[in-house]
């Protein structure tokens, strides 16, 4: 059958029925079960595997707050290899290049299913090559929290990196040599996994703050090192100097100003990339100029937002993950900088998720099409290069969703007739800002009216596509392979698109 976005969904899979379809369903919640006994401390992973026990066919989960500095997932993967366990499902919240060992586990059939929100690096290669025997399911950050709390994604054992742990098994993200700040993505795993292991390199008598409640912890594994704190830094944390990126950022901020989105009490989120930070810089400058104080900024938090908080430009920061060490330090000392769980951040069934309170969000795109559908999961060959993360969550929740991207990259148009892979549906996207013009989705008549008399370069998305083609020519469309290797799930768990094995032609 075809889903609401026009993509074919295999029989038996829940089909995406629209971005608001979840509203007709009720929240399903497993009960949270505090442990009856204090956690047991271990010094060997093998002993933890034996105690849990970890056996064939189980689902193991991890969080990605140590990002590309993570050693915990890799250590668990090495133990799986050593024990020769089979048919496991891994459910890390994200997979980074540092998790290369996962490729070996997939190749050899130790791991047969993978459920994650983002995948980039060597672990993606055997999946693209069709070596994952089961499926790759790709959630959003909020969708993963929903899937875990509802029992749709049952987790047998959660291995949660904890930068510091006290004698009672409570964990903190802001202490220890691998302090990574907020542990928002670990919260669903902590509360609903059948067996929870905190993995730490720092045991202390008392914690400055508790991010992981020891009442839900079964075991604490003490190791030499859980990760490299330098690896948590996400991409670039400096404002771009690229003149095209700056032009896009300026126009995005001008657009938001013209439509009145930057006003007292507003809230915002951007990514960590150089252009996103450039938008934040433009917004900051407008806030200073006009004496505007916002309510909050959210998401992955960088030092740039910390500076804005400290300058008094926002009341709060809501932090589901820290993108740099400056954000980690701020979270530890500033009460206005608050950690939030993945569910509070973007779970569609949370009573008041932060994403629903956003005035606007600035997001990127690998591809965007004439329906404003966005792809951030694959490249145009169908190769895995990322995933939604919070893309679809924030796009749905924010009052205005702005996609910023170059019109062409590496001589390829980013605006397309049809995206290769659909990550975020066009109904959740409002505006596209490129260096050659701004396109507003036709049914946002409020935004069209608000900019009608402005000097902004407003164009249709069809017009932008033509411009892109005039510059680069019309790219040859590559047919995808026929074998389905996975699915992209919308935040409610329905299939919004399939992942196909890239064509070998």
């Amino acid at each position: 059958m075809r889903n609401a976005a026009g993509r074919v969904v295999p029989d038996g899979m829940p089909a995406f029925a629209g971005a608001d379809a979840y509203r007709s369903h009720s929240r399903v919640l497993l009960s949270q079960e505090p442990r009856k006994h204090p956690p047991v401390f271990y010094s060997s992973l093998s002993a933890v595997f034996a105690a849990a026990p970890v056996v064939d066919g189980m689902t193991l989960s991890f969080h990605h707050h140590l990002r590309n500095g993570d050693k915990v997932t890799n250590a668990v993967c090495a133990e799986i290899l050593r024990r020769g366990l089979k048919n496991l499902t891994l459910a890390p919240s994200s997979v980074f290049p540092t998790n290369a060992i996962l490729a070996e586990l997939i190749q050899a059939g130790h791991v047969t299913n993978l459920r994650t929100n983002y995948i980039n690096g060597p672990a993606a290669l055997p999946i693209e090559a069709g070596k994952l025997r089961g499926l790759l399911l790709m959630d959003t950050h909020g969708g993963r929290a929903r899937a875990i709390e509802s029992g749709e994604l049952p987790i047998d054992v959660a291995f949660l990196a904890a930068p510091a742990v006290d004698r009672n098994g409570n964990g903190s993200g802001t202490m220890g040599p691998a302090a990574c700040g907020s542990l928002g993505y670990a919260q669903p795993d902590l509360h609903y996994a059948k067996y929870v292991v905190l993995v730490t390199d720092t045991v202390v008598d008392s914690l400055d703050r508790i991010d992981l409640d020891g009442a839900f912890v079964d075991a604490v594994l003490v190791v030499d090192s859980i990760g490299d704190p330098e690896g948590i830094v996400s991409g670039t944390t400096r404002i771009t100097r690229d003149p095209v990126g700056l032009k896009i950022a300026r126009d995005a901020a001008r657009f938001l100003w013209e439509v009145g989105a930057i006003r007292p009490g507003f809230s915002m989120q951007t990514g960590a990339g150089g252009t996103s930070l450039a938008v934040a810089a433009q917004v900051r400058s407008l806030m200073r100029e006009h004496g505007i104080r916002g309510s909050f900024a959210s998401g992955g938090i960088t030092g740039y937002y910390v500076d804005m908080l400290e300058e008094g430009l926002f009341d709060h920061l809501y932090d589901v993950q820290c993108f740099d060490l400056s954000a980690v330090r701020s979270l530890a000392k500033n009460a206005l900088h608050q950690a939030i769980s993945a569910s509070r951040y973007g779970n569609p069934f949370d009573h008041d998720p932060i994403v629903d309170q956003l005035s606007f969000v600035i997001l990127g795109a690998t591809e965007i099409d004439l329906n404003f559908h966005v792809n951030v999961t694959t490249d145009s060959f169908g190769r895995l290069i990322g995933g939604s993360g919070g893309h679809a969550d924030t796009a749905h929740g924010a009052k205005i969703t702005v996609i910023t991207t170059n019109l062409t990259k590496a001589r390829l148009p980013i605006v397309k007739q049809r995206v290769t892979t659909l990550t975020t549906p066009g109904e959740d996207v409002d505006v596209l800002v490129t260096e050659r013009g701004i396109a507003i989705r036709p049914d946002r008549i409020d935004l069209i009216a608000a900019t009608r008399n402005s000097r902004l370069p407003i164009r249709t998305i069809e017009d932008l596509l033509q411009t892109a083609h005039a510059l680069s020519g019309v790219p040859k469309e590559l047919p995808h392979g026929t074998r389905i290797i996975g699915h992209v799930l919308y935040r409610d768990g329905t299939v919004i698109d399939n992942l196909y094995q890239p064509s070998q032609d």
Partner: protein
Amino acid sequence: MARSYLFIPGNHPAMIQNADVFGADALIFDLEDAVAAHEKDAARLLLAGFLAKARPQGVRVYVRINGLDTPLACKDLEAVVGDAVDGIVLPKAGMSELMELSTILHNLEAQKGLAKKIAILPIVETAKSLVEVEEIAKLSRLDGILLGAEDLSADMEFERTKAGTEIEYPRARIAFACKAARIEAIDTPFTDTNDPDGLREDCLHSQSLGMNAKAAIHPNQIETIHAVFSPSPKRIEWALRIRAAARKAGEQNLGVFSLDGKMVDKPIIDRAEKILRAAERFGLLPEERA
């Protein structure tokens, strides 16, 4: 009329392709200093192909060719002179070089059957050029004159500073020559691309000496240059009030009238009209914003 002239390296495809997105009033595609000797042919071909296929719209397009004292200049001209190009920027331009270029352009225009006349922007960057600048400014084909302070400093053996006191005289002399000839006085680029405050100071300084535009060597400089060389909203509002009052006075056959307690006569009205022409050219009139 232009505020900014953005240099784009002729050997950089991504920069060439995006040259028109930064809002510069004029573009100078560079085949000279930005291009290494071994890339000269490739850059020339690249630029000629780009201009033939995708000439930027709504902006003046110039090409800085290699010096006439090199064998490259004629090849550059052969390749780029055409309908897509508004003018040629000539480095180290003295009277004799400009006469020679004018002759070459005349012949190329005839040979290529061009209906338009290709303009010239000479770069005054030698002591000899500077002392000839009043004569240079009178030549036909000139859109303006660009000060090249870096080469001039080498020729004069003075040190370039951020304050720019050493180029006050060349700036002022070029500005006077250009204003007398009713052509653009274009200031030398500010070479620190990471110092917007310094750029602003430099623009204000050159403007105070009579320069009305500035060359940019990085797109991120355009916004600052425009902020200085555009008429301010306050000045536009003043000029509009002068225009309205002048029209009213004209209906009453008054040559001189008073506004806000100050006498207004023809020079002030002319100044106001000049501001409004610039504002109109740059799309800054309030009705255009409405």
